[in-house]
């Protein structure tokens, strides 16, 4: 640390009021930064968690989302029987033809109707997504009007408790189980038997099919097999890629917005830091003169004041991160515009995000402190010593 280090640290403590205010300003900026990016992070994590590396989702060629895709009944056996598809204990292929539509349900928070995804699934669906576990109740029995609901959907929409009846598609469905899926998008959905949902929603085909591959490395040969079959106008994707792509647009919007707002806001905070550091330099002109007279080089003075400013900003950064932390895990929701239905997700603050916040605060401190530090180093020794 040395003399000069402790000197700067101690003078920061002397000016604790000013230092606290400056750090406070930086803390707010960092808090906003971390919180907005936590939204993007959470949204992305939710969608990405929906995909498994061993799974493949098959959509119509050109379809960007399940809701605008279509898959014929006759396509199903052609895909199921491919050798790359894994098989369950009963030697039946682990493949689930699915139908996704949205129904309007009122939100708990504002009572406005939202588009809640309803997924009709095949009997193997729960085996294909291995992260799915039931927290309450049991899996729906195929061939009955029973449904399962994701945990996040239960909290977000009205009337989705265990045992309650939900009316849609001219029928009444009973909720017999509530599941979690590692915070994946499935937790915002209602799941039921696809063969009952199709007539209920007056559909004649499926929309997508998800299969578990015997091994993740088989994807390429699986893809080649489907694309070379002239009867199939379909495109398989790795499930992870598909969901990552789904999150792309929304995550980009939030990131751009968050960065734009925090950047502008940070200019204000940098001005604040600059003010503080200029004042610090002015107060201590004599001391700086003394240090220079003792033989400290200009460069040492610049680095010392820069370090002081960065340290001050880092204190703000830590404060900001602490301020932002309580939002971690809060659940909220937005519409996934590629599927036009609502996805519930949780704010997600990752260590990398916190590190980003700290780095951002350090940059603010360095930018704010640079000019005042240069000014400090330029003070002529003789004049500085004379000053009162």
């Amino acid at each position, binding site marked *: 640390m040395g003399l000069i280090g402790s000197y700067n640290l101690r003078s920061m403590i002397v000016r604790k009021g000013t230092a606290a205010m400056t750090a406070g300003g930086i803390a707010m900026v960092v808090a*906003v930064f971390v919180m907005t990016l936590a939204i993007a992070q959470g949204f992305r994590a939710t969608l990405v968690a929906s995909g498994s590396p061993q799974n493949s989702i098959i959509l119509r060629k050109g379809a960007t989302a399940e809701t605008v895709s279509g898959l014929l009944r006759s396509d199903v056996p052609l895909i199921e029987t491919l050798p790359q598809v894994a098989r369950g204990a009963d030697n039946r292929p682990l493949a689930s033809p699915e139908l996704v*539509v949205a129904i*309007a349900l009122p939100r708990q928070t504002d009572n406005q109707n939202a588009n809640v995804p309803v997924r009709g699934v095949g009997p193997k669906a729960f085996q294909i997504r291995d992260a799915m576990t039931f927290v309450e109740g049991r899996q729906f029995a195929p061939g009955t009007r029973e449904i399962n609901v994701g945990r996040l959907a239960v909290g977000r929409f009205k009337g989705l408790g265990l045992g309650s009846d939900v009316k849609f598609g001219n029928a009444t469905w009973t909720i017999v189980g509530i599941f979690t899926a590692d915070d994946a998008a499935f937790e915002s959905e209602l799941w039921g038997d696809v063969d009952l949902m199709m007539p209920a929603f007056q559909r004649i085909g499926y929309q997508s099919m998800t299969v578990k591959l015997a091994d993740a490395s088989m994807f390429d040969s699986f893809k080649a097999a489907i694309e070379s079959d002239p009867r199939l106008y379909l495109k398989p994707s790795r499930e992870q890629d598909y969901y990552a792509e789904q999150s792309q647009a929304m995550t980009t919007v939030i990131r751009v917005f968050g960065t734009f707002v925090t950047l502008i806001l940070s200019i*204000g905070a940098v001005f604040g830091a600059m003010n503080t550091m200029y*004042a610090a330099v002015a107060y201590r002109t004599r001391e700086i003169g003394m240090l220079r007279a003792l033989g400290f080089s200009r460069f040492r003075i610049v680095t010392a004041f820069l370090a002081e400013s960065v340290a001050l900003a880092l204190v703000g950064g830590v404060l900001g991160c602490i301020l932002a932390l309580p939002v971690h895990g809060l659940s*909220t*929701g937005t519409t996934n515009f590629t599927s036009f239905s609502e996805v519930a997700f949780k704010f997600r603050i990752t260590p990398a995000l916190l590190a980003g916040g700290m780095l951002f605060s350090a940059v603010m401190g360095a930018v704010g402190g640079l000019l005042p530090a240069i000014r400090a180093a330029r003070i002529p020794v003789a004049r500085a010593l004379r000053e009162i």
Partner: protein
Amino acid sequence: MKFIGLVLKGARRSKRRTLLTVMSVAIAVFLFASLRAVLDGFNAATEASSSTRIVTLRSTSLFFSMPTSHAEGIKSTPGVQDLTWANWFGGVYKDPQYFFAQFAIEPDSYLRMYPEIELTPEDRKAFLDDRTGCIVGDGLAKRYGFKVGDKITLQVGIPIYGTRDFDFNVRGLYKSGGAAVDNQSMFFHWKYADERSIQPGQVGWFVAQISNPDQATQVATAIDEKFANSPNETKTDTEKQFQATFVSMFGNLNLLLGSIALAVVITTLFVAGNTMAMSVRERTTEIAVMRTLGFPSSTIFLLIAGEGLMMAIVGGIIGVSLARLIVTPDLMQAGAFIPVFGVNNANAVMALLLSAGIGIFAGLIPATMASRLKIVDALRRVA
């Protein structure tokens, strides 16, 4: 008022500091006004929605359509004067990233019921006469360089419309005469899409014109009762409610943008308050001399508080002017999401009031500090 010269003098004492403070307030006010503009933009369509139009959807959700035969049932409901319908087309222009809204509308009645779609009589006639014609908003036209006479090709987005691309002739550019209709959309003949649909005769939503806005709820209930227990049950809402569900789709924007605005204000309070405190501390001797000369402590208080207020208001004016210049639909491409986008007068006034508030709060503590100075102590202190 006579002390204004002194306040100015005080502000000029450290020009750099005053400038930095003014600029940080300006930035805060700019951000605040822009955030408000975004929020207002989202809510504009809801605010401007007509009270005499009600929207009928399938009760399941807007993903589902209903047969055209519903038109008769709705039209014959007492209180309904006029009726039109539309479908969401969801076509893809070149690439999914070039997104804009396309509506297949029943052209005659739709244009009649939405006077917000402003078209010249010639364009209107040209559009109505051309089965494959379309009209596009002037904002959208600007974004993609569409001109009257152009051909727009859309790939099918929703499988129900087959696989063949749709070609449209641009027959007119419309202006938006109210936030209920944005200028970022494309409208074309419902028949054109319907004749190629796998499942013809389907309507996404009906819009009914009602004679008395006070009866909206009764008429809506009457319509829904007509179709209750049919395979195509409906849900009818006011246009306002219909628009509000779209706004709420984005999530809790009010809370998100509100929290950011609050953080902006707090940050600025920290910065401005800090500066004022610093400048008071620096001027301790000066203030003591003024007190000795006979300035009452209340004047000192006003001088310091006035300085804070002045800096904040100057910053506020700069911030608002910047926001007015920059946050306009031309410069900020908010795309199809925010139809009306700009800092209106109410926003500007609010932002200015905010800056004044910041000035008052930031100056309060330093001004109190200054007015409470003990003359003897202050005179004795060295810088």
